[in-house]
Every structure is written in structure tokens, then in C-alpha cells.
């Protein structure tokens, strides 16, 4: 029943994105989001799409896998595009006029732009982080990036520790859930029939043992950590240090340059580009 759920979608591989420092990837992701959301003019959108394509190719993730991650969003994508298509009022005459439906040129442009933005956001964040970074690397990177906040007494290490413990125990919890479901089924519990209320009620014999054992496990883990003198992040060293190589910085520089480029390109209208091309060729 639960065996298809995997947490995170890390997909082992050996691409530049897999090898890149997780901290750099997080910064690049932020820049990438700015690029995808800011791009408005034709050229800027073209650059942003090109960057997305580069990331997807560089990740060496199978297209089928990517499609799977986009699939749940198809509905949202169509819905947003449709709203933009029908409800954007434009200047000039509508392109399509039928009863009370008016579709303007601006509407079509907006719908396409929204679809491209959403699609690149999903694809970009999948290949930059979820597919190519292990959850544990991710928490380490977040801790490292947020470490300046420690000066403000924000318990960054503790949060990161909680996050990584939670991540580590997800497979155990899934296994345990399966075990409990089987045990209650052996006592003739019925999870698959009846109305919604009955089904929710049927989950009680699963949820209670699950919570009880999760709490017990947490207490045991806390004891085990204390027995080994865990006392928070102060002076703690790591088994696996995050390392950034020169290549990571080059990558970061390029991404920053593209971000700046896209923002600049936004101020150039399509008309100006055409004019520029005309002067170039005449």
C-alpha cells in the first residue's frame, strides 16, 4: 500500500549537478527562480528557457523521470494558463470573439508566459536539487548557509539536526506502518470499504500504535545521543564535510551573470530587437 512512496526523489547519478556543492546549488536555485519569474521580454524568456534546457541536460536525468515529476502539475498548469487566456483584458480588438468570451493578444502571451514559467520552475528545482542532491546533503547545506544566523541566537544546528533525523527515519516509519497495517488486517480490520467516515475511523488502529512507537523511538534516540555526549552544534565536526571546488564558483558566476543578463534583457522590447537586427543587416 505504501511501498510506492519515496521521500525526496534523489536519483543516484554522476553528473556535474550531482557533484556540485549543495550550498552553491541552493544559491543558484534562488537565482534561477529570479530568472524564471523575472523574464518578461522575448529575449529574456529565451535565455531563461535555454538555461533550463542546459540544467536538464547537464543533470543526465532520464526524461521519463522528469515527466513523472511534472505530471501532477499538469492540471495547475492548464488552469493557470486558461485563467490568463480568458481573463486578461487587452487594448485593441480581441483576437477571438465568441458570445461573451474575448481572447486578446495579451492574454495569449500571458498564458504562454505563465505556462513556461511554471514548467521551468518545476523542472529547474527538480534537477537542481531534488533529483541530484541527497536529503542529508541538503540539510547540511541549509545549516551551513544559515549559520550566520547563529550569531542572532537562532538554533540553526538544532533545526538542521531535527530535519536530518526526520529524513533518516522516514523509511523506518513507512516500514513500521506497513507492519502495523498487516497486523491489524490479520485481525480482520477492513481499510478498503465503507464511506469516508468509516475509512478514517479504520485508520485509528494504525495511527495510535504508529504515534506510540514514534514517540518511544524518539526518546530512545535522545537517550542514545546523550549517552554519546551529544550537546548540540558547538565544536562538532562532521564526517562528511561540504566542499566547494573552483568549478562550483564558475558555475555560480555564470548563473549570476545570466540573472543580471535576464534583468537587463527585460528592458529591451521585442520591437527594439527587430530594429537592431534590421540595422545590422541593412
Amino acid at each position, binding site marked *: 500500500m505504501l511501498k510506492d512512496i519515496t521521500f525526496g526523489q534523489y536519483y543516484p547519478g554522476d553528473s556535474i549537478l550531482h557533484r556540485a556543492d549543495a550550498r552553491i546549488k541552493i544559491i543558484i536555485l534562488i537565482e534561477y527562480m529570479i530568472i524564471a519569474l523575472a523574464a518578461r521580454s522575448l529575449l529574456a524568456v529565451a535565455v531563461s528557457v535555454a538555461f533550463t534546457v542546459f540544467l536538464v541536460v547537464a543533470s543526465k536525468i532520464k526524461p521519463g523521470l522528469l515527466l513523472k515529476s511534472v505530471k501532477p502539475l499538469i492540471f495547475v498548469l492548464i488552469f493557470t494558463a486558461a485563467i490568463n487566456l480568458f481573463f486578461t483584458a487587452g487594448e485593441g480588438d480581441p483576437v477571438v470573439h465568441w458570445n461573451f468570451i474575448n481572447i486578446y493578444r495579451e492574454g495569449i502571451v500571458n498564458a504562454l508566459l505563465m505556462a513556461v514559467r511554471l514548467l521551468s520552475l518545476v523542472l529547474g528545482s527538480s534537477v537542481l536539487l531534488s533529483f541530484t542532491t541527497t536529503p542529508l546533503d541538503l540539510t547540511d547545506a541549509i545549516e551551513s548557509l544559515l549559520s550566520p544566523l547563529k550569531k542572532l541566537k537562532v538554533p540553526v544546528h538544532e533545526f538542521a539536526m531535527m530535519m536530518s533525523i526526520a529524513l533518516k527515519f522516514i523509511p523506518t516509519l513507512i516500514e513500521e506502518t506497513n507492519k502495523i497495517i498487516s497486523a491489524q488486517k*490479520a485481525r480482520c480490520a477492513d481499510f478498503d470499504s465503507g464511506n469516508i467516515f468509516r475509512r478514517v475511523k479504520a485508520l485509528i488502529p494504525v495511527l495510535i*500504535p504508529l504515534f506510540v512507537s514514534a514517540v518511544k523511538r524518539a526518546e530512545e534516540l535522545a537517550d542514545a545521543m546523550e549517552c554519546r555526549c551529544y550537546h548540540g552544534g558547538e565544536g562538532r565536526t562532521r564526517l562528511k564535510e561540504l566542499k566547494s571546488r573552483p568549478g562550483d564558483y564558475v558555475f555560480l558566476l555564470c548563473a549570476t551573470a545570466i540573472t543580471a543578463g535576464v534583468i537587463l534583457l527585460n528592458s529591451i522590447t521585442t520591437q527594439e530587437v527587430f530594429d537592431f537586427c534590421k540595422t545590422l543587416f541593412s
Partner: protein
Amino acid sequence: MSQSIPALEFSKVSVVYGDKTSFEVRALDGINVKFPESSVTGIIGHTGSGKSTLAMLTNGLLKPTEGQVLLFGEDIWSKKHSMKEIRSRVGLVFQYPEYQLFDETVEADIAFGPKNIGLDPEEINKRVMTAADFCGLSEKELKRSPFELSGGQKRRAAIAGVLAMQPKVLVLDEPAAGLDPKGREEILGGLDEYRRAYGATLLLISHSMEDIAKYTDRILALKNGKVCLQGTLDEVFAKAELMFDAKLDVPQITKLFIELKKRSICASTDVYTVERAKQMVETVIREAKNA
């Protein structure tokens, strides 16, 4: 009764986990076994040999990839009976069953199974009392929350939860694992009483050869998903040396007789209870005196 239909029968049963992926594991491979009615079969084998997988097949929690599981001669997957009915006839107690406890009181928790079958309250109450009795749970313990009980009491409450369905076939996956000798004795003794009272067929998975020797009359030994030995206790322990070769354990007392055989003091090794050992030793001494 000698040639009657077995309570449970496995016919060419194979189970493959993770089909169609690279992580294919053949947990059971062409198993053919019959469990005669009212017999007690001890199932032994190393960790990973497929014992728990076999247990999950008996009540339809797992569907065999190939082959059939027959309950009193009928394929449990034939759709003739609902899964609920199958599961009320084949009780399955998992390894460390304590985690299945959830209700406010032990009494209510034991009643969970019978309630799911749809029995009337009076019958449920009767069954809960009987099951608690077999498992040695007192009136006072029945009123407590299952989470306040000791480890051994929790185990007994969980087993009572399955016994309350009064199954004709009872499968137990290491019911006494991790308990002290007294706790083991009480649980296994209670199960034996239940079996005698209801003529139930028992499948007992255990690592303790002493418990197997004491409570079962048949043995099924699994190795890498295949049957490596099966038969009555006498048949299997007569081949005790074979069991050693298969890296399976035998009772301490049998080990002693294997050593005695090596030294040509006593010829037979099908000795697995202290009673029988005493007889054998006495015979040997008498013969030695006569000679």
C-alpha cells in the same frame, strides 16, 4: 482421519519480492508442504530463509507469485470466501506483536478482531474472556491500558487479540522471542492449551530448538526459500547430523547424544527430550552392566 484433508497445504508456492526490478528476491521457491489437522509444526530456518514470508501467505496478507495455498482443500485466493473469513479462520500472530495494541483497555483491544468479524456483543465478551484466560491475563489487567503493561503482558494481550477470533489454524512468528524462560513457558503453554481445546492446527516459527522439541510434533526446516527437511520430530532428529550440516541448531540434549554416538556409546540421535534421554542413558548403563 489418517488420510483426511490437511488443514493447510502449500502447493508449488513461490514468492518473488520486487518483481520486474533489478532487486528481485525469491523469498520462497517451490514450496510443497501439508499441515495435517490438529498437528503442531515447528518452522525453523535461518534469518532470511523465508519463514515470515510463509506466515504471511497463510492468511492471504501476501499473494503467492506462483502456486496455491489451500485451506481445508480450498484455494484461499479462489474468491469463494472473503478475506475476512479466511483471516478469521487462520489467526496470524506477527513477530513482536505488541505494536498492534491500540485501544483504551486491554479488553477492548482483544475485542477488536471478534468485532471486525461482526459477532454479537455477548459472544465477543465470552471470547475475550476465554482468550484472556488462555494467555494468563487477569481481570485486573483486562481493565488497564495496554500501554501500561509490562513487555510480557503486552505480548500476551496481543496474542489474546488473535486467539479471540478462535481460529482453526494458528500461525505464530516467534511468539516467545525476547522473553524470559518463565514468560516463554506461560505463552507457549497457553497456546498448547488452546490447541487442545479447539483442535486447532498450529504453525510455530521459533529459533529455540528446546521449545520446538517440547511443543511440536512436526518440523519444517527452510533454507534459502526451499524446504530442506520436513517430517515428524522422530524422523527429523534421527537425521540430527544432517541438521548440523545444514547449519541448523538441534536441542542441547540432542547435541549430547550426537557426541555419544561419535564415541560409539549410544547409537541413536533421535533424542530431544530429557525424559527420553534419561531412558536411553538407563538402557545403555543396563546393557553395559549385562555385558
